């Protein structure tokens, strides 16, 4: 009896272990489907991170158009799946959705490297598609890794400089800054202090870790053209002098404001994601780096704000690169184990390349459309200030950071260092950057990269 019980328990564990390691494998040759042939009805399941009503409506219009194009396919959408861990769990369990959408660009390298998101290259070759005919070069750097094209873009984000025209004009400025020297000079001139010494209006907040875009070292690293990785795959923070230059510029401006004053100011900042509570919209920030989506916030929340946009400033010795910026946004792909790969490919290709759908979604959601045709479309109905972000996205020098199998771990290590650097707890910049690089290299070694 005891032996039989032990065997039963052992069998149960074996079954559970087998269940928990399922979901591997994928076909080398892609399934094909002839859109013109007769088909049994297919329900295609897709998980998407969008959840706000206007966003879901914008994406839904794309799905409606897809269903009209391929009438035997019905879309079944699950919204609000922001956490990639859920998708990964489904892939591991062998029951993923047929197609997936993600905002987590940083995870793409791992998705690609492990095959969790299928390489789309066989589908692309099968259809004779030339990717560079559809998308600007910046797309390549955030939709593929290690020679695999694991994702296509579906709209994207681009970062630029927002500036308050009234505040600039009041101080005699007629143009936005184009270099970091100009940015620094204007930031100081535009800053106003209260009688108690606290900041009333900030020209530009250099603090890492305030608002989502403005406080992210990643955006500055793109502008400074600071490489994240060397050609041999090791971290480049200690070897690329642009990093040290970037951090020195940042610390100088931080110290001009004063660490505690900046912290005090940031603590009083309004909600970045409220329609009319973000500091730039309220006039407490004269200039700020932000994504293209802010134009919609301003239109809805503070329509009287007299503002304009421009590409983010670049270092003085790289003035010829002016116009570049951080780009990268929503990606779509086919997970390993997709039950309807052929139809999923039709969907991914349609969503990424159908001009009318992209334009409609861009208009509804307020993101940058991602194909050459959609960028030039006369149907785009976005604010004038949005043009900056279309240009930044199309600029061949715009890019996202180098992808890594570490996901966001490399950014976390750098951000952790940046926080201590800006507050003055780390004073030896070069040694600190060397430690950052060493830590990232150790993580890569640990991950088997």
């Amino acid at each position, binding site marked *: 009896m005891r032996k039989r019980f032990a065997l039963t328990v052992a069998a149960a564990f074996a079954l559970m272990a087998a269940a928990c390691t399922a979901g591997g494998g994928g076909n080398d040759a892609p399934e094909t489907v002839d859109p013109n042939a007769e088909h049994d009805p297919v329900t295609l399941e897709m998980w998407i991170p969008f959840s706000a009503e206007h966003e879901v409506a914008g994406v839904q219009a794309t799905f409606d158009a897809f269903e009209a194009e391929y009438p035997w396919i019905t879309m079944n959408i699950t919204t609000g799946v922001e956490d990639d861990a859920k998708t990964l769990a489904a892939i591991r369990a062998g029951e993923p959705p047929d197609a997936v959408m993600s905002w987590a660009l940083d995870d793409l390298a791992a998705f690609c490297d492990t095959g969790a998101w299928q390489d789309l290259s066989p589908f692309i070759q099968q259809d004779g598609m030339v990717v560079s005919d559809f998308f600007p070069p910046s797309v390549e750097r955030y939709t593929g890794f290690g020679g695999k094209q694991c994702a296509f873009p579906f709209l994207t984000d681009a970062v630029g400089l927002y500036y308050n025209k009234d505040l600039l004009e009041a101080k005699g400025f007629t143009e936005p800054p184009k270099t970091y020297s100009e940015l620094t000079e204007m930031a100081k001139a535009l800053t106003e202090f209260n009688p108690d010494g606290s900041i009333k209006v900030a020209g530009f907040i250099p603090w890492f870790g305030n608002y989502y875009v403005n406080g992210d070292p990643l955006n500055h690293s793109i502008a400074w053209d600071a490489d994240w990785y060397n050609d041999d795959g090791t971290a480049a923070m200690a070897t690329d002098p642009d990093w040290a230059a970037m951090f020195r510029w940042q610390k100088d401006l931080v110290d001009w404001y004063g660490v505690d004053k900046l912290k005090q100011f940031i603590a009083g900042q309004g909600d970045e994601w409220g329609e009319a509570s973000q500091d730039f919209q309220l006039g407490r920030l004269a200039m700020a780096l932000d994504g293209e989506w802010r134009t919609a916030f301003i239109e809805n929340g503070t329509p009287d704000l007299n503002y304009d946009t421009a590409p983010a400033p670049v270092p003085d010795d790289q003035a010829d690169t002016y116009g570049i910026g951080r780009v990268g946004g929503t990606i779509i792909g086919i997970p390993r184990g997709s039950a309807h790969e052929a139809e999923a490919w039709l969907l991914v290709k349609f969503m990424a390349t159908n001009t009318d759908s992209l334009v409609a979604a861009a208009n509804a959601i307020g993101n940058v459309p991602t194909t050459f045709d959609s960028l030039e479309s006369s149907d785009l109905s976005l604010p004038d200030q949005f043009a900056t972000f279309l240009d930044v996205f199309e600029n061949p020098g715009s890019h996202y950071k180098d992808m890594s199998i570490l996901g966001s771990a490399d950014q976390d290590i750098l951000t952790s260092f940046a926080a201590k650097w800006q507050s003055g707890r780390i004073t030896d910049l070069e040694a600190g950057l060397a430690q950052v690089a060493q830590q990232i290299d150790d993580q890569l070694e*640990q991950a088997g990269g």
Partner: protein
Amino acid sequence: MALFLSPWIIGFSVFILYPMIASLYYSFTNYDLLEDPTWVGWQNYRFMFTKDPQFWIAMRNTLWIIAVGVPLQILTALTLGWLLTRPKRGSRFYRTALFLPTMVPPVAAALGFVFLFNPSTGPINQGLKAMGVHDPPLWFYSPYWSKWGLVFLGLWGVGQTMMIFLAGLLDVPQQLYEAAEIEGAGAWQRFRHVTLPMISPVIFFSVVIGVIAGFQYFTQAYVASFAVSGMPTGSASSNIGGPEESTLFYSLHLYIKGFAHFQMGYASAMAWILFLIIMACTILLIRSSRRWVHYQGGFR
């Protein structure tokens, strides 16, 4: 017998035993949730102790919150419990009022404290300034004060421990106090030689639970550090545990490794180290209790 126990056996096996065995196995593997785990021996453990500076930062922060937070919580709970034995009228009201914060969900409480302690707009600093404090702390925005903010949050929600202390205090036989008084014992001596020994099982229980909870401290630090980062949900994990990693506790680091960086093998190793530390601390506390915990009737 086995039939009657089977619901428990199945539940225990599926939800506790199997995950524990699986995580022990994963702790010796490189497991990224995307591919099958690959055996790496002791590599995760070696990396943890030699190449992960955040591990030691998280450990230091965790020990700090235990060393400072647990004694303060016990002292506060004991003081409040003792005060609640005093009033002749209105004791039910005071008990309810002091217990109410316990009912507030931790997420809401943490967000409330971030608002209250906001150095720019929060009423605490406004009040401190009104009282003449020129340079009040930056609280959750300062690496030197952020943990103290969490300690105050813990003290605010000490109602449950307070109720246990109240029950313990009310359970002390009155005749012991009377006997001590007849012997000439003063208030302090009565507290030291009657109250403390009689409530020592309650103190012991609170210390054990407090230490275990301290090692697993997560929600409040996660919410508070994320709230002050101003970042949207789902953004980079570097926003958790700030400012400057001052609230990066062991469980937060484990969570980031497992669910943000997808290093589940490493996170499993961290979980087992945490398990061993908690077990060692609990055994030490139980052993030490023989010297300072007194049970009525002498039972242990």
